[in-house]
C-alpha cells in the first residue's frame, strides 16, 4: 500500500493528467450536442451489434419454445378451419357451422419417444388424460398423413400405436371413387415409407398415382391425405385387391403430432353398441 502510494505520488503528473483529461473529455461529450451525438451513436452501434449477436443465440436456444407455440397455434387454426368446413346437413338450409358444433378438435403434442425399426412400433407423446386424450383417438402428422391411434393414456403422457404396427388398421378410401380399403403396414415389407391398402373390392381399378385418403369411418376425419399408390392391383387369393402405396408421413422425423378429438366419438360408440353383432 505504501509502495503504491509512493508510486502514485512519484508519477503524480501522469495520474493527475489522466484524471483531468478524462474530466475534460467528459465535459466535452456531455455539454456539446454534436460530440454527444457522435459518441452516443457509435456506442449505440456497438451495443446494438452486440445485442444482435446475442439475439441470434437466444433465438436458437428458444427454438423449442417457439416450435411449441407454433404447433399449438397451428392446431387452433386447423380446428377453426375444420369448424368452418363442417356443414350441418340436418337442417333445411345449409349453415356453415362455427365453433358451436365442431366435431373435431386438434391438440398439438410433442413426440417424446419414437421408434421405427421394430415390427410393432409405439410412440410416446407428452399429452395425457389431463389434456383430454382418450384411448382410440386418431393421431395425424403436422403437414399431412396419418400417424396412428392412441393406445394407453397416463396422466401426462400417452402412447401411440403407430401405423407401423401389426394391429393397426385404418379405414381409407381411394380419393377418386371413394372405394373403401384398409391401410396396414408390414406385410413382408418393412419399409417405413410404404404401406398397403387391402380389402379393396375386386371391381375397382387402381392406378399408379391414385391418392389414398382416410375414409372418415374410423377415428380419423374424412379426407386426410395418406399417400399415393405405387403398385396397384396386387392380386390376393381372396375376393379383394391390394395395393402398395407411398406414405406421406415420414415416421423417422416426426417431432410433433396432432391428436384429433372427436366430440361425437362417445355418442357414436354408444349408438353402435346397440347393434348386436351377427344379429
Amino acid at each position: 500500500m505504501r509502495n503504491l502510494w509512493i508510486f502514485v505520488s512519484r508519477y503524480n503528473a501522469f495520474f493527475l493528467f489522466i484524471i483531468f483529461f478524462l474530466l475534460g473529455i467528459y465535459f466535452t461529450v456531455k455539454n456539446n450536442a454534436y460530440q454527444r451525438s457522435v459518441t452516443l451513436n457509435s456506442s449505440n452501434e456497438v451495443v446494438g451489434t452486440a445485442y444482435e449477436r446475442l439475439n441470434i443465440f437466444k433465438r436458437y436456444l428458444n427454438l423449442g419454445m417457439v416450435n411449441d407455440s407454433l404447433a399449438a397455434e397451428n392446431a387452433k387454426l386447423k380446428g377453426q378451419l375444420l369448424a368452418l368446413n363442417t356443414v350441418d346437413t340436418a337442417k333445411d338450409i345449409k349453415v356453415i357451422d362455427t365453433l358451436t358444433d365442431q366435431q373435431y378438435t386438434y391438440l398439438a403434442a410433442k413426440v417424446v419417444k419414437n421408434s421405427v425399426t421394430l415390427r410393432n412400433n409405439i410412440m410416446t407423446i407428452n399429452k395425457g388424460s389431463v389434456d383430454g386424450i382418450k384411448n382410440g383417438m386418431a393421431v395425424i402428422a403436422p403437414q399431412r398423413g396419418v400417424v396412428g391411434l392412441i393406445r394407453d393414456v397416463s396422466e401426462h403422457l400417452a402412447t401411440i400405436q403407430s401405423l407401423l404396427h401389426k394391429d393397426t388398421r385404418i379405414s381409407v378410401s381411394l380419393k377418386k371413387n371413394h372405394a373403401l380399403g384398409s391401410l396396414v403396414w408390414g406385410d413382408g415389407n418393412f419399409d417405413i415409407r410404404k404401406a398397403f391398402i387391402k380389402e379393396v373390392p375386386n371391381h375397382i381399378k387402381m392406378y399408379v398415382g391414385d391418392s389414398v385418403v382416410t375414409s372418415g369411418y374410423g377415428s380419423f376425419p374424412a379426407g386426410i391425405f395418406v399417400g399415393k399408390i405405387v403398385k396397384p392391383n396386387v392380386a390376393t387369393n381372396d375376393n379383394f385387391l391390394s395395393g402398395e402405396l407411398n406414405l406421406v408421413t415420414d415416421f423417422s422425423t416426426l417431432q410433433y403430432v396432432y391428436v384429433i378429438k372427436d366430440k361425437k366419438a362417445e355418442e357414436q360408440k354408444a349408438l353402435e353398441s346397440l347393434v348386436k353383432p351377427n344379429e
Partner: protein
Amino acid sequence: MGFYDLSTPFIYILFLLLLPFGIPNILLYLLAFGTGLTLDAFYDTMGVHATACVVLAFVRISFISISLNRDAIDDPEPSLSYMGFQWFSLYAFLCVIAHHLVLFFLETFRLSEIGYTLMRCGLSCIFTLLIILLVEFIFYRRTSR
C-alpha cells in the same frame, strides 16, 4: 486560396507556459483546467479547451522534467528571457502542438476530415508560435546569465 480562415492563434496558453517552475502539479492542472473552462465558456465549447490545456500541462511537466535537472533550476519561470531562445522555442513548440492537436481533434471529433483538421492545426500552430515568440521578445528582460 487563402489560409487565413484556417489558422486561429490561441495566445492564452502563454499564461500556462509562463507559470513558475516551482508550482505544484495539482495546482498547475487546476489552473490549466480553469483557464480552459473560462475559454470554453466564451467559445461555447464546454470542455474542449479544458482538455487541451490539461494535455498542455502534462507536456509542460514532462518536457521540463526531461530537459532540466530539477535541483539545478534556479530560474523563476520558463520564459524566453531566462531560458534562452533555443530551449524556449522547443518548449513552446511542443506545448503548442500538443494543445492544438487535442483542441482541433476534439472540436472536429471525427477522423474522416483528418486532412482538414491537420491543416488547421498546423497553420494555427505556426501562427500561435509566432505570436508567442513575438510577445516574449516584446517583454524581453535582459538578464545576466
